[in-house]
């Protein structure tokens, strides 16, 4: 770390050494065994930079693909193009403020990003959240889970070349987002979860929109899925592709729909129940195939379960306050807390350490996409270039969360 190695981003490097233009080989000595192996090209292999500006990398992910004709022989994901240092910022803000920073982490499902830190801080404070607030949390989070999965289905199709499903997905998402905007005030970065409850009670507009949508949600979503579910081209392209078996899924630490598609019913809502999930009835859909198609279909099943949860929550919603009494300046006793929730992409965790001051001493965000994305590295070799996108899309990574 003492010697200065030329940066990849240094424009001079690119101009002075044309080899970097041809081969995309970094201009410094390999730092690890794996890097040395990766950047040693055999005959007929070439490196292709896919990203960070590429139509289908879900943000600014850079994949260095080693290809042999159309066949991918290895790949190396390069992260960090969206790194904002949220953990450091959170450690330098007080507890209320740290939550705001987590909002844009995984911008598709912001409410989950808020919920995990909020729950960790509540653990630090030994705080009891009013039951109505818990129910509202579940309600809004499940809505957003549907929105996220609806969008996932569109993205998957878009990465496979289908133009239309993404827009149908966005229509569903927009309905939900408008609903949540009525509830929280914003469309994307809701900033709704608060330490000790939620920011505001349910209001009439939200409930009327919700009722309106609930009456046709399932029908609409099922209609939209006919576009892909049985489509021969889609099925042929995804079935048997990127198979993750049980053992591999556990070893890779996958969570969420990706691990459930491999037959492991690991869902934090059941594995370590939080909130009011123990009181609600729902299934954990699993599939045994572990391929991209199973991961896709599993999310379709999850949408149905979420609708079921929302239905129950609406029927059981208790009365009461939505915020516990929390001082403006929070100074928890020194201690450690780990809270994990089931976000649409898997287990979203927050590890917070308090040192008795009003700022978290350590503010660690565990993002599921970060772990899930690792699976592309063992899955891809041997597949075709076009499958990179199919596998990537089926793992559903969001770069905002991966790069923190």
């Amino acid at each position, binding site marked *: 770390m003492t010697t200065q190695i030329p940066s990849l981003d240094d424009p001079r490097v690119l101009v002075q050494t044309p080899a970097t*233009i041809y081969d995309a080989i970094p201009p410094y000595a390999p730092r690890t065994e794996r890097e040395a192996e990766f950047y040693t090209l055999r005959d007929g292999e*070439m490196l*292709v930079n896919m990203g960070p500006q*590429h*139509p*289908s990398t879900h943000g600014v992910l850079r994949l260095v693909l080693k290809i042999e004709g*159309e066949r991918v022989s290895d790949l190396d994901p390069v992260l960090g193009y969206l790194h904002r240092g949220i953990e450091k910022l959170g450690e330098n803000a007080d507890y209320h403020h740290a939550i705001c920073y987590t909002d844009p982490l995984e911008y598709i499902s912001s409410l989950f990003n808020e919920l995990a830190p909020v729950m960790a801080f509540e653990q630090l404070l030994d705080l009891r959240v009013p039951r109505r607030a818990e129910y509202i949390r579940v309600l809004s989070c499940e809505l957003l889970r549907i929105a996220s999965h609806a969008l996932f289905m569109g993205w998957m*199709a*878009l*990465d*496979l*070349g*289908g*133009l*239309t499903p993404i*827009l*149908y997905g966005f*229509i569903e998402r927009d309905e939900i987002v408008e609903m949540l905007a009525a509830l929280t005030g914003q469309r994307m970065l809701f900033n709704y979860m608060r330490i000790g409850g939620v920011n505001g009670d349910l209001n009439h507009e939200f409930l009327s929109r919700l009722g309106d949508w609930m009456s046709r949600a399932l029908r609409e979503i099922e209609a939209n899925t006919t*576009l*892909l579910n049985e*489509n021969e*081209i*889609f099925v*042929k*392209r995804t079935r048997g592709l990127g198979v993750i078996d049980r053992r591999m899924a556990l070893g890779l630490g996958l969570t969420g729909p990706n691990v459930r598609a491999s037959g492991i019913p690991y869902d934090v809502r059941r594995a370590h129940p939080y909130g009011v999930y123990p009181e609600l009835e729902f299934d954990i859909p699993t599939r045994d195939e572990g391929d991209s198609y199973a991961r896709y279909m599993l999310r379709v099943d999850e949408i149905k379960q979420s609708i079921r949860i929302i239905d129950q929550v609406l029927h059981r919603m208790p009365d009461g306050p939505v915020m516990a009494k929390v001082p403006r300046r929070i100074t928890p006793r020194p201690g450690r807390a780990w809270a994990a929730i089931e976000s649409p992409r898997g287990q979203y965790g927050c590890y917070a350490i308090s040192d008795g001051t009003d700022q978290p001493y350590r503010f660690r965000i565990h993002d599921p996409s970060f772990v899930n994305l690792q699976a592309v590295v063992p899955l891809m070799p041997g597949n*075709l*270039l*076009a*499958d*990179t*996108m199919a596998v990537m899309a089926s793992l559903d990574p969001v770069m905002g969360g991966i790069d923190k």
Partner: protein
Amino acid sequence: MSVVVRPSGRLSPTGRVMVPALGVLVLLVVVLLAGIGTGIIPAIVIWIGGVLLANIAIVRFVVAATAVLLFTIPTAFVIIFMELKVIAFMNLRIGPNRVGPWGTLASVVHGLKVLSKEDFTPTGADVSVFTLAPVVTFVASVMAFMVLPFGPGLFGADLNVGMLYFFAVGGLGVVGLLMAGWSSFNKYSLLGGLRSAAQMVSYEIPLTLSVVGVIMLAGTMSLNGIVQAQSGSFLDWFVVRQPLAFLVFFIAATAEANRTPFDLTEADSEIVAGFATEYSGMRFGFFFFAEYVNVFLLSGLAVVLFFGGWTAPVPWPWPVHILVAPGELGLGLLAIVILAPLVGSTLLALPLWMLRSSWPFWRAWILGLVLFTLLAIGAIGIYLLINLDALLGIVWFFAKSYVFVFTFVWMRATLPRIRIDQLMGLAWKWLLPASLVNLFLTALAILVVHP
């Protein structure tokens, strides 16, 4: 204080244009009169006419080629607009709606935008090949247009090997794509170029083989002849006798035109824009012109081969022919042309005037004139449609072709993209055997029915 008088200064802006224009006009009239008076101009006209008449085949070809070349531009614009609008509608969007009525000028504006963009050549590109590639692609598709019959007697050239010419020239397009992919100095372009080479070369074979059945049935390779062989009702169309061939042809044509689900050469989610990655400005425009012209071309070919070209699906059940031939009326025609509007308008105006007593007669008469004009246009249109086969043929041909264009766009809106190995597998494992089976069955049928 002296005032400088500038004559043009006192003229209105229109006047400033009109005064010099009048001068030029007067000069022209004088020259013309002098030319006619001295007999020079008639002599020149007669001479040119003689030359043209002597080389009528060449003149016909030049006129047809120009017409076809000019025809590609609005075709591409219309198809681009269709693509924008139809896909938008299928996505539950509105699509272009700002430029022109219902956004119809959106594609024209796209064209202008493409024209005004920087023409960029990447460092390290093979400049001459890079420059030629879009031209090759465009020229190949326009050349293929020459043999397509738009209506009875309306075609660039009626080659007796029209079909062979079509596939030969249409296959040239791939050379342009390959050139573009190679010369761009970009790995995505290279991948796109290689994909297009593999794809188009593979799909040429089922495409051509599927058509052989049609050729055997029609007994000719001239596209015009094939259309004539299908005249009659829609039961005579070759799609009825060659459904398998049509299926193979349609799939192969989709691949040949690089349309979804076979648009691997420009698969945006995999290889950015394929061969066109490094292209910008008008060169990019050429590629896209070529693509959309190709779409129309293959739709037109499908119609010609399998859907009876410009023939009507159902023949006119009773032979209506208006026996009035305008040419035979002589001076009577002039009288009719002058008198008919006056009489007709007056007749139409009278009831209006009677009903609306508050109107002055001239207002009713003007309304009558408008109504008469509309009626006259309608009547002349019907007359032309019935009496001129070419016009009716064109209408049928375009109607059928655009149904196919719509289908292409519809497929693009619906289907995801196929993978390269599946693409090749489909071509070699399914389409090629299917077309061979079709060929065999057709030959067998011909042997059995007409030994």
